[in-house]
């Protein structure tokens, strides 16, 4: 009986210690997560321009305005373009480089590290460098013209297609090294004997890649794809920093649109914060839908194999 009591006492003590150890994040969860969620949810049904006394409940008006706002839906189109061009290029490129590097190559560690290195550079710095290289009188225009790729200098930031090119280029530059690391990790888990057996059977490099490597890394590939898609969907500050929507808001993604139009310090003039809240809520609903469709598609695909 006494032993039981002592055990119970210890259990309660451990419980208490657990709660105390994570007390800060638990408190913060209510103050900095739940309360802001409630705030945004409630304000999305109001007109609210931060001026005291102006606030009034407007029902679903903000949502209706958002749903019929062509400029806002175009940001989703931009995001789709960005994702569907960037993710495939980035993944194919990094899978290729990872395959090359996974062989016992001298200096492979050095190359892997240097491919990863751009990841540690801030988007702000990338933006400074790109603005200079791709300026009207910049390095890129000079050499592209000299080598005959373009007939006259390009205003990179004044056309959607060229501005998007820069966004995609900068993003691939910054991120492909991470995927090289992920793929390398996946590739080292493929048993060496499989390759040896295939080589004895006379399979070439290509055949070995498509018949052994690819099927073996499919599960990890899906994780990497999910991470890449998820990361791309959330793209916000990156666009703010790189183009700030130039030209004329055409390269805004939903997240960067939200920042550029409604967040203090970035928005210009007085804005209806309530309207911004409704856009934030629509955004997150769409993110969740995409993520759940994706995870369902993945599990279906896994059943196939």
């Amino acid at each position: 009986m006494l032993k039981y009591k002592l055990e119970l006492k210890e259990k309660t003590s451990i419980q208490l210690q657990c709660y105390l150890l994570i007390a800060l994040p638990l408190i913060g969860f209510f103050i900095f997560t739940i309360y802001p969620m409630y705030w945004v949810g409630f304000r999305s049904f109001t007109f609210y321009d931060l001026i005291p006394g102006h606030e009034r409940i407007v029902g679903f008006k903000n949502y209706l305005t958002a749903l019929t706002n062509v400029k806002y839906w175009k940001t989703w189109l931009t995001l789709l373009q960005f994702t569907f061009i960037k993710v495939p290029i980035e993944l194919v490129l990094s899978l290729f480089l990872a395959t090359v590097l996974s062989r016992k190559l001298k200096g492979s560690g050095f190359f892997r590290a240097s491919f990863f290195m751009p990841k540690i550079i801030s988007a702000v710095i990338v933006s400074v460098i790109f603005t200079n290289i791709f300026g009207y009188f910049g390095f890129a225009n000079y050499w592209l013209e000299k080598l005959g790729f373009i007939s006259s200098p390009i205003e990179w930031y004044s056309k959607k297609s060229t501005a998007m090119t820069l966004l995609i280029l900068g993003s691939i530059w910054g991120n492909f090294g991470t995927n090289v690391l992920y793929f390398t990790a996946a590739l080292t888990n493929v048993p060496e004997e499989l390759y040896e057996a295939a080589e004895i059977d006379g399979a070439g490099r290509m055949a070995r890649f498509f018949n052994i490597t690819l099927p073996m890394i499919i599960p990890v590939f899906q994780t990497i794809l999910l991470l890449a898609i998820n990361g791309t969907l959330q793209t916000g500050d990156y666009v703010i920093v790189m183009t700030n929507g130039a030209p004329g808001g055409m390269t805004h993604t939903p997240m960067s649109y939200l920042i550029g139009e409604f967040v203090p310090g970035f928005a210009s003039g007085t804005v209806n914060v309530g309207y911004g809240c409704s856009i934030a809520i629509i955004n997150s609903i769409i993110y969740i839908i995409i993520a759940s469709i994706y995870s369902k598609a993945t599990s279906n695909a896994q059943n196939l194999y």
Partner: protein
Amino acid sequence: MKRKNTIYEICIYAILIIAFLIVIFPLISVFMASFKTNAEILTSAEKVFPKKLTFENYVLAWNSENFRVGQMLFNSIWYSLTSVVILLFLSSVAGYVFARGEFKGKKIIFAIFTALMFVKLGPITIYPQFETLGRIKLSSSLWGLIVMECFSMPIIEVYLVRGFVNSLPKALDEAARIDGCSFTGTFFRIILPLLKPVMITIGMLGFNGSWNNYLYPTLFTMSRPDQQTLIVGIMALKNSGESASAWNLMFSATVIAIIPVLTAFILGNKHITQGMMAGAVKG
């Protein structure tokens, strides 16, 4: 057969070296440009290397009245270091609690924090967060951001630590418990010292993330320019009307902002890359 392999290897190295050159070109170009005069930056952008090296830009940037690189460097350093200490503390403690702790609601709490990764309202939540922090007069300083970080759950890092703790034998805890260590004591005396490798990875990536953080430090220093970090200051200069005439300041500040993270990366790249690869496989 042997010859075929040599040719193959030469091709591979050629591809890798080209990729390497493309990857480092942007950094080389900004590094070299920081030694050019402003006139040379504007007129001969096609040349990567300066006609003659000048350190003038660094002197100018350091002594500039409105673009105080020294102050910003100091802000970047203290903000990043404080953030990292907080991150290491929170992630190691929470990772341990979620791995070894037994308490009511453990599963639900962990599930909720995981689910929150997918609910992203974006920085619009800064309004209510400022409202709360404003009550304790912290909404307009970098300290406010630090306070907010103290109350946050770095869930991805928590996952890393939790996975690591789960891989440690439970006998360790039990032995410590028999020797009279409490649950908390076991963490500090036994588990924490063993977390060193994962702590190094988290610390390096965390330092890097805070150093490069743009959006939140900008929001928290809107009315306090003296608290701007290097990254915030560089972007502010780029967005200002003087940017065209201030390329030299911008470039020298950029190089100053790159050097700490690059040094940290060169010293610790093994920990970073191996940590990330391990995370991916367990992932």
